């Protein structure tokens, strides 16, 4: 990752060069290569966000703005307990999921980076869930969580734990989703960390060993700091994915029991397509968008401002 000083150096070096004209071949090249991405992002990302912001101030008929209603949609959404339940569930799920995914992903990468027999097979087994389609993943876990016929409770019974009502219990449904999400994303995070670990020059560890660092100290003061960019990337990907939790409540619980597994993503879907109130769905979508940008910005700032592992 570029540090501010590196960027400053590049800028100052650039300032000594002759500034290219507006239609210089260099600028034309830059514009033409950027244009497809800008056009696609504008159509599929920027425009929908702006249109959602616009619709959030209107009484809507499906996707058409009918009547300006000021902040009425905001008041309606924020005054409902359901929104705060969905927000709380989403934040709890995201916080626990991201931390566990990063911690266990790193652990798996460190273990499977070592000289273990059959490590490629273990890596493949851990990565496969990431490529399983979401609907199949949800159905698979629906059966695994069945209180009587599911594998999870069967395994727990061997250690004397009574049957848990995973998806039918208000207390267990979010932990169940966390477990599922961990299974799905762990392999991807592990692969990212593995790539990072394999790019650490052996000289760094050798130098630390010569300086008397033990195994833990080498991990703490060599491996972790070098992995900071990978950790940031993994954290942002895991964060965005967790904040958007949607398929699990849609396929497995319909947000229930009661509203105990409602998430912001599922609430947007319900508001827009079940209650056909796109104005209110836009408000919730903007909240989710703000959370995503806000947390991502915090992570970037945290990782960019100082050596977080130093």
């Amino acid at each position: 990752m570029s540090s501010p000083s590196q960027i400053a150096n590049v800028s100052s070096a650039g300032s000594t060069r002759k500034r290219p004209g507006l239609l210089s071949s260099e600028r034309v090249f830059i514009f033409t290569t950027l244009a497809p991405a800008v056009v696609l992002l504008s159509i599929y990302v920027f425009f929908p966000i702006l249109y959602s912001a616009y619709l959030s101030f209107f009484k809507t008929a499906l996707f058409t703005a009918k009547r300006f209603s000021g902040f009425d949609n905001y008041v309606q959404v924020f005054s409902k307990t359901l929104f705060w339940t969905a927000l709380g569930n989403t934040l709890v799920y995201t916080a626990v999921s991201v931390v566990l995914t990063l911690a266990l992903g790193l652990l798996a990468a460190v273990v499977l980076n070592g000289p273990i027999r059959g490590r490629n097979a273990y890596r493949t087994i851990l990565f496969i869930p990431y490529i399983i389609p979401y609907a199949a993943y949800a159905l698979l876990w629906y059966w695994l969580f069945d209180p009587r016929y599911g594998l999870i409770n069967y395994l727990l019974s061997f250690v004397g734990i009574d049957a848990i009502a995973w998806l039918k219990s208000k207390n267990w449904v979010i932990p169940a989703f966390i477990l599922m999400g961990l299974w799905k994303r762990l392999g991807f995070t592990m692969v990212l960390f593995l790539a990072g670990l394999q790019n650490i020059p052996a000289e760094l560890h050798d130098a630390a060993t010569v300086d008397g660092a033990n195994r833990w100290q080498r991990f703490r003061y060599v491996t972790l700091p070098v992995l900071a960019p990978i950790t940031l990337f993994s954290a942002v990907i895991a964060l965005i994915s967790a904040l958007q939790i949607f398929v699990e409540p849609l396929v497995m619980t319909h947000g229930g029991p009661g509203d105990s597994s409602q998430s912001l993503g599922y609430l947007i879907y319900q508001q827009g397509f079940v209650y056909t109130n796109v104005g209110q769905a836009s408000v919730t979508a903007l909240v989710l968008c703000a959370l995503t940008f806000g947390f991502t910005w915090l992570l970037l700032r945290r990782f960019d401002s100082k050596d977080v592992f130093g």
Partner: protein
Amino acid sequence: MNRFLRSTRLAIVLAGSVSATAALAQQTDVVVWAENGTFLQQSGLIAKFEAENPQYKVQLTEYPWQVAHDKLVAAMAGGQGPDVALGEDQWVAEFAHLDLLAPLDDFKAKQGYKDEDFNPNSWSYFVFQDGKTYAAPSYTEARALFYRKDLFDAAGLTPPKTLDEMLEVGKKLTDGQQHFGLADQSGDLDLHFFSWFLYANGGNVYNDAGSKCTLADPAGVEALSFYKKLYDENVIPKDPAKRVDTAHGFEEGYYAMAESGPWWLGLIPSEAPAINGKWAAVPLPTGKTPITYGHPNSWFVPASGKNKDGGEAFIAFMLEPANGVTWFESWGGLPPAKAAYTQGALKDDPNVQALLKAAQDGTNSVHGVPNGQAITLEIIKMLSAVKDDGTDPTEAATTACSTIDGLLQG
């Protein structure tokens, strides 16, 4: 002579090729959306339709029931809907309210369909508040009580005919650990389950005008109290950790009774052959009225459809009694046309007759009002409050009505 014959053959081949090419050129796509598990392709009906209607080529897309409603809303709102779609009953009025559907009154008149030729609650079910018919019946949803004959025989019991009998029989078949009298339901199925008690008790979700929620009326609260009692008495597992998958629980004998639909008639023999001969279906036990939960599902033509003629031709084909029987044989959807019950597998099957009786005795469901899908979600939440939180039925019904009243206003 040879030359003449060769020339004649060549002319015939050329003429055939030209006409086939012309037919292909005139062939138009009919975009059909249906739900997974309705086996339109596997039943051979799509191929038969195309053979009988060479001017049409069917483009079939199947979605899970859970997402079909929302896919349809998004597609139709964007002007990209199919030419004909299979859907639930409560969606029709909701879509009609949003101007997303084409009326089918002219189609019905042109085809000469008469209400009396169909099961009760067929075409009339899809007449919206503006007096227009926005869907055709696709298949009849009726429910029956499936029970394990072996368990009943061992306990010296006979299948219940009333709800009170069902409660008593259920208590006798429950040990609270490994055996329960009646199966738990979840999601939409829980809504259907409770609706049975509601209608049997003379209640309804809303008043006749569809303008006010009536779940908190005495009949509604009584039905909800009965539903709660089944859990409180452990006839259905009170402990959520003991609420297992309905079909597997029935197969194992963990549940002695389960409310379900005609698809179980095919599902049990194929998926649970070990209990063949150990189960049967009987009409749902009744309450103050013989009315139970049930309804026709729908075929509708979106207003945005690009081939409405093709869509209507497909509906006409599916409504033919013989095709209804073929469809039933592939997955268990009961045909809406009465003539279908005089032929094939439906004629002498006592289990089918139990379901047909339910349809003929009268059924009801959320329909004909705006926001039907959202209303059903509110009812499911109400049921969760009662069975999971132990909320008082009056309080739960009143809370549900406070939201449903607004939804009924559109």
